[in-house]
């Protein structure tokens, strides 16, 4: 119970928006997500001016509803407080600096059965040997334990990972054993183009409780323009079968969409397809790389317009599960953070040859920063952090520090920012897109809560 003389205050930088009679309230400093107020709670919320006591607010509320009592107002303030949209005394929320989860990107193979036009991997016949893979796994756990990570998220990548399914399953078994031994939780995702997701393969994934991320860039020609076999033939029809197989076998999976100038027009159609099948999906903006000769980045205006069309479909019929963390590239609403990614802090990329690089986009573009032969892989990535000045957080980026959204976008991919602007301490080239669309994405979450909570 609060005291009648307590003064509630709204968190600074809180974002509000009207959704019909409802009020969307979002605190970027909180992990609680979007809060929606109905007409009545909205009225009470609007009486907070950071000076009035609860008694003052009750008096104002009585003018609107003479039957209202202090205890009723107290209850709703308890809800506001619990949703972290208000505070008493002083604001308590702070952004945590270090993640307790370690991301490990294991580049299992350079081999691939596709030749996607925007791929950042130079295909060769090389792949990770068992010896390298096992040593990498052992070293990762050793270092994670030393640095106090409570969970490791492994991502098996390539090339095409399913060409090495036996190896992956062996590694998963090994990781589970090591996790148990070191008391570290483990999680696995297999990245795949989907071509090899036959019923048999899917069954094996299911047996081993593996999650899958399938690349799908659009329906029919929108996918087939970029995701092709060596002979130029598109791969959509195979991915469609793969999704069907995953569905039937009840394997956990998501669809990863790389948004480029080639598929931007087809994004609404793809969204409709994914929503109709209740498929979790992520939109990721294409990143330039030196192996791609054509211009695949999307014009800002076109990108915003097309994403808005896709969002409209979600708004009209929101799925019961939250989709907002996958709708806007690097923008992550789940919790406030200081860095756009784990590079240099909590993210290890192991190449097929056992060398360590800072980021998978630099697989062959950066001289390795270490190898699995080194004693402490977390120390290796810390030393290999390429961002300058070292330890740069979003709070130090000049144009970002006053931005309302800084803790959820964190200035986007640092690599992209450097590629396009020649420095790290500035905002993302996608800043305008993020700012234009973050409010739209928040509305989608509010709409979901209204649909299922009303």
């Amino acid at each position, binding site marked *: 119970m609060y005291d009648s003389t307590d003064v509630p205050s709204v968190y600074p930088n809180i974002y509000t928006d009207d959704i019909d009679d409802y009020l969307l309230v979002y605190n970027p400093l909180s992990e609680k997500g979007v809060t929606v107020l109905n007409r009545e709670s909205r009225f009470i919320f609007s009486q907070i001016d950071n000076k009035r006591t609860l008694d003052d607010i009750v008096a104002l509320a009585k003018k609107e509803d003479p039957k209202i009592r202090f205890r009723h107002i107290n209850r709703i303030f308890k809800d506001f407080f619990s949703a972290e949209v208000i505070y008493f005394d002083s604001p308590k929320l702070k952004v945590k600096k270090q993640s307790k989860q370690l991301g490990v990107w294991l580049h299992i193979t350079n081999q691939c059965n596709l030749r996607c036009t925007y791929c950042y991997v130079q295909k060769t016949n090389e792949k990770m040997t068992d010896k390298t893979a096992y040593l990498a796994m052992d070293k990762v756990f050793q270092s994670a334990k030393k640095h106090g990570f409570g969970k490791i998220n492994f991502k098996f990548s390539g090339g095409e990972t399913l060409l090495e399914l036996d190896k992956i399953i062996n590694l998963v078994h090994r990781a589970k054993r090591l996790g148990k031994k070191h008391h570290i939780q483990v999680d696995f995702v297999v990245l795949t183009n989907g071509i090899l997701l036959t019923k048999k393969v899917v069954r094996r994934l299911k047996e081993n409780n593996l999650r899958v991320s399938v690349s799908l860039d659009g329906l029919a020609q929108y996918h087939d323009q970029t995701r092709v076999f060596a002979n130029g033939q598109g791969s959509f029809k195979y991915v469609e079968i793969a999704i069907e197989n995953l569905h039937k076998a009840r394997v956990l999976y998501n669809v990863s969409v790389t948004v480029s100038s080639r598929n931007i027009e087809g994004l609404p159609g793809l969204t409709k397809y994914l929503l109709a099948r209740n498929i979790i999906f992520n939109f990721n903006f294409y990143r330039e790389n030196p192996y791609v000769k054509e211009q695949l980045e999307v014009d800002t205006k076109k990108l915003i317009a097309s994403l808005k069309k896709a969002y409209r479909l979600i708004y009209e019929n929101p799925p019961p*599960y939250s989709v907002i963390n996958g709708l806007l590239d690097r923008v992550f609403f789940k919790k406030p953070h200081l860095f756009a990614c784990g590079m240099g802090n909590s993210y290890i990329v192991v190449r097929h040859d056992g060398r360590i690089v800072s980021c998978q986009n630099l697989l062959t573009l950066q001289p390795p920063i270490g190898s699995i032969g080194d004693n402490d892989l977390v120390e290796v990535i810390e030393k290999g952090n390429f961002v300058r000045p070292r330890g740069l957080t979003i709070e130090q980026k000049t144009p970002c520090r006053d931005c309302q959204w800084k803790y959820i976008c964190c200035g986007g991919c640092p690599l992209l920012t450097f590629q396009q602007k020649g420095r790290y301490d500035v905002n993302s080239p996608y800043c305008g897109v993020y700012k234009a669309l973050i409010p739209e994405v928040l509305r989608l979450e509010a709409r979901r809560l209204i649909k299922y909570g009303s």
Partner: protein
Amino acid sequence: MNLHEARIMTAENVFPARDRAPVASAALTHQPLPASGDKFRSDISSMGSLADGVYIDFKTDNDCACGLVY
């Protein structure tokens, strides 16, 4: 205005904890979109272990790229 009806909606109170994490469970069937939160909850409950604490969100707090995460 009847201020007794004041209430707020958050993911926590609209979707109880057990149902919040397994967001992808719905993606595991070809069922049409659930008509309501209750229906969704019963769909998930029937999926047994998949719904039991499986953390399904494909984004974590330190990943990036290829659709997974950041």
